[in-house]
């Protein structure tokens, strides 16, 4: 419930956002972005919130505006023009040198300044080979990656291997709306490192052991932990979505006994209003496929005639997606479920997943949606036989779970170590939950959900109703209090 704040000081709230992938569909389905969207909607309703500034690297404002699909006089989207970064290369790696041209192009695309340097002079550098492989990966994939995916990596290297300045200058752009509170919804967004004012760090989870592309060495994980530790220490407030993450993932990283706040999600009951009929949805999809980038197979596909399972959130782990695809293969081929798999992501941008799809001959049955607006997103959930959530942070009920409940679509979701009671999770143990690393269990779970749709839908709607009185203004209020 919205609490009444008496004599609350007016605040300007800033959100630092790094759109780190090229594809809008991935962004719009990312729980962090959804969370930001909902929080912004909730925060504008708070009388003491004077202005909300959504900041991102320059050139991504349009993308951000579409992701955070919300207009209000209090809200402005700002691209910050100065983004400095350094890139280190290994001068003695001839292969890498030969690829530098491509890398430079990609860095230029990312509107970053290219400053070659010699790693040999840096005594703090402990893992030359690791870096070498990273940079080689960048060079190899530079041509196909977006600048910001690259920028994220480059930023990471910068943080990991150097303490030179990497910062955002914004004073000249924000004027009176300069935020006194910054919300950073992802602890890996390096651009937020030197933001002035109070910084609230949101941590959905600390698990970057399965990120896109990167090799998961112990050294890499350790270096990331170091970065997050620094980030935690310099933040005014630390917020998680579950006690599980707070206690088992975040607190062990803290040097002091600082409080970690747990902020549960609210619900958005407006999504059903956005959904259109299946025929209209099919028309919109085909139109998108014509205008976005021509998909030879699906450009004129009769989507209205097929059943499908929908993965609405897939900016999670590569392995989660691999298990889900393997499970789908079982459903299609072994259990002969005549259903397609629609995935709200550009899977082809990930070589591991793309290779899996091609090698298993699933490219004609797994449909990667074009960038989705709210109408298409809501419609795709509404008309799905089942929403599949293959992977998610521990202890967190994903926003899409509630979205599906409001749209009447049953959900098959991975099990999580929920023990906090925040969401009344003791009942979240039915057969509609699966072990996320067991494709057979995922397939069995989806079969159960499809065969018991009414029952599952009813249970999940009841779960939704438990939260139905908590709107996002209440969440924003709690966040800013």
């Amino acid at each position, binding site marked *: 419930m919205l609490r009444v704040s008496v004599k609350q000081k007016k605040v300007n709230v800033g959100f630092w956002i790094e759109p780190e992938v090229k594809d809008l569909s991935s962004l719009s389905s990312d729980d962090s972005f959804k969370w930001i969207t909902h929080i912004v909607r909730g925060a504008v309703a708070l009388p003491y919130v004077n202005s909300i500034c959504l900041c991102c690297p320059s050139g991504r404002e349009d993308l951000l505006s579409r992701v955070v699909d919300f207009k209000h006089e209090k809200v402005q989207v700002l691209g910050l023009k100065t983004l400095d970064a350094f890139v280190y290369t290994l001068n003695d790696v001839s292969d890498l040198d030969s690829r530098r041209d491509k890398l430079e192009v990609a860095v230029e695309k990312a509107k970053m300044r290219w400053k070659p340097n010699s790693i040999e002079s840096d005594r703090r550098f402990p893992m030359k080979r690791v870096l070498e492989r990273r940079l080689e990966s960048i060079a190899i994939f530079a041509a196909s990656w977006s600048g910001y995916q690259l920028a994220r990596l480059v930023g990471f290297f910068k943080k990991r291997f150097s303490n030179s300045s990497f910062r955002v200058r914004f004073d000249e752009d924000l004027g009176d709306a300069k935020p006194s509170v910054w919300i950073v919804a992802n602890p890996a967004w390096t651009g937020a490192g030197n933001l002035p004012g109070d910084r609230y760090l949101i941590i959905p989870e600390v698990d970057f052991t399965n990120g896109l592309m990167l090799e998961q060495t112990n050294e890499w994980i350790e270096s990331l932990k170091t970065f997050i530790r620094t980030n935690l220490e310099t933040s005014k407030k630390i917020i998680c979505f579950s006690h599980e993450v707070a206690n088992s993932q975040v607190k062990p990283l803290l040097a002091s006994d600082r409080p970690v706040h747990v902020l549960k999600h609210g619900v958005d009951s407006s999504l059903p209003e956005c959904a259109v009929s299946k025929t209209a949805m099919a028309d919109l999809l085909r139109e998108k496929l014509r205008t976005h980038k021509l998909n030879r197979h699906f450009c*004129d596909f*009769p989507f209205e005639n*097929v059943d499908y399972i929908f993965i609405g959130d897939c900016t999670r782990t590569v392995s989660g997606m691999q298990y889900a695809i393997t499970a789908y293969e079982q459903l299609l081929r072994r259990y002969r479920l*005549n259903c397609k798999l629609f995935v709200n992501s550009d899977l082809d941008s990930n070589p591991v997943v793309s290779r899996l799809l091609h090698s298993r001959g699933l490219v*004609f*049955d797994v449909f990667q949606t074009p960038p989705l607006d709210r109408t298409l997103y809501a419609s795709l959930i509404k008309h799905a036989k089942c929403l599949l959530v293959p992977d998610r942070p521990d202890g967190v009920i994903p926003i899409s779970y509630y979205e599906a409940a409001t749209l009447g679509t049953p959900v098959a979701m991975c099990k999580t170590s929920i023990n906090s009671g925040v969401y009344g999770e003791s009942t979240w143990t039915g057969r509609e939950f699966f072990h996320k690393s067991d494709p057979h269990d995922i397939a069995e779970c989806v079969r159960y959900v499809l065969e018991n749709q009414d029952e599952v839908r009813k249970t999940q709607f009841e779960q939704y109703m438990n939260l139905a009185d908590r709107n996002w203004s209440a969440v924003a209020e709690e966040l800013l209090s």
Partner: protein
Amino acid sequence: MTSVRNPSGQSTASIGIILPHAYRGGTFRLFRSICRYFAKFPELNVVSAVPATGSQIETLSEWVKEQEFNNLQACEFSFETYNENEAKEILKKSGIVAKQFISDSYYLPKDSSGLLMDCTHWFFVSDRIMEVLLPLKPYGIFVTDHLHRYYPYIFHENAYAAQEYCIWNFQRNIRNADLCVASTDGTVEDVVSFSGATGKIIKVPIGMDVEHFLQLINKCGEGQDGCSFTFPYFIWVTNSSHHKNHENALLALKKFFGQNARLHIVVVGCNTDLFSPNIEANLCDSRRAAASDAYISRIRNMIAEEFEEYSDRIHFEGEVTDERYVQLLRDAEFLWHNVIADNGTYSIIEAACLGVPSVSSNYPQVKEICDLLQLNVRYFDPYDVQRTAQALLEGPDPSVIDRQCTIKRVCTTGHEEWTDELKKSLIEIDSPRKCLEYL
């Protein structure tokens, strides 16, 4: 469009029935059945076309002569390939507009006498057309199966990239087709949800050439000319295609042999003799090449290693004559049908016509056919070796097959019983679509 008159002087449509590949066996019989089906309508002229690359023209011409129809003729054809610019030019001359050309190459079926280009409609028996058709005529496709959806390695193991290209073309042809025809609900569903057909879709009965099989039974003389085996056995009708699930089947068979000391197995089908570890040394060149195929070699090695102690209980017959097939089938205790996926099988029906029960892998098409014909088949999951072995041990459903009733029911599914829906559905498409969004 060319106006055609049949010998009676009646104004008519002219249908080109086209077999896209030099198929033999079941698909060729289906092709002939479809030619016969259309030729039954005297108002139609029917041109039956087989690829010039194969040797079917002689068989086909002979068969056409034997038929009682005078509106049926045979020809050879080839697909001519065109690039985008050539395709645009051809379509322009025909007054057809395609907004976007999204295919790499285009096909037109051509014969030396121009018979196919004179046809008013085309009907392809099989969707396995390697490039995208230029739709100069309204066309229909008989979609035999969508095996590649369930077993994507059927064409060449580890060559999926090329296969993806082929499958894309298959799908594009189905999507551009004015009419798609399939014989099972499962395949109809695949045509919709896998290929995204946008034209009319109809389902026809399975179209088994019942007459042919009943003639064979009579020819073999019931109860006479036994197969000459003196041991009890069950028969595995298969071939060397990968989707026939040989590896799982053999693992299950080994378990079965371990617990059943009585039954032998007789393996029948094209190239299955090449699975035998005792393969003959004096094979001809083409057979030697087939024998050295990686998949066949793998299965042969598996049999050599895993079945040494049971080698006297596996009998590889290879491809046999129709008569020998009937003899082997008739004397079997039951038939084993083990595939990952297929468009059903005639072998279970043929077995039932001989009073032989079946144990079969469970997939929608076979279940649909067996339910329709009330064949009491014992099913198993082809992915589950243990359950497959268990099904073999339990043997077929003990209820007795009433042969005469089965034959009566089977006769209702033959192409002779097809209604005129297929003809009407094709003929009612009176001209090619003038404007296509994508080609």
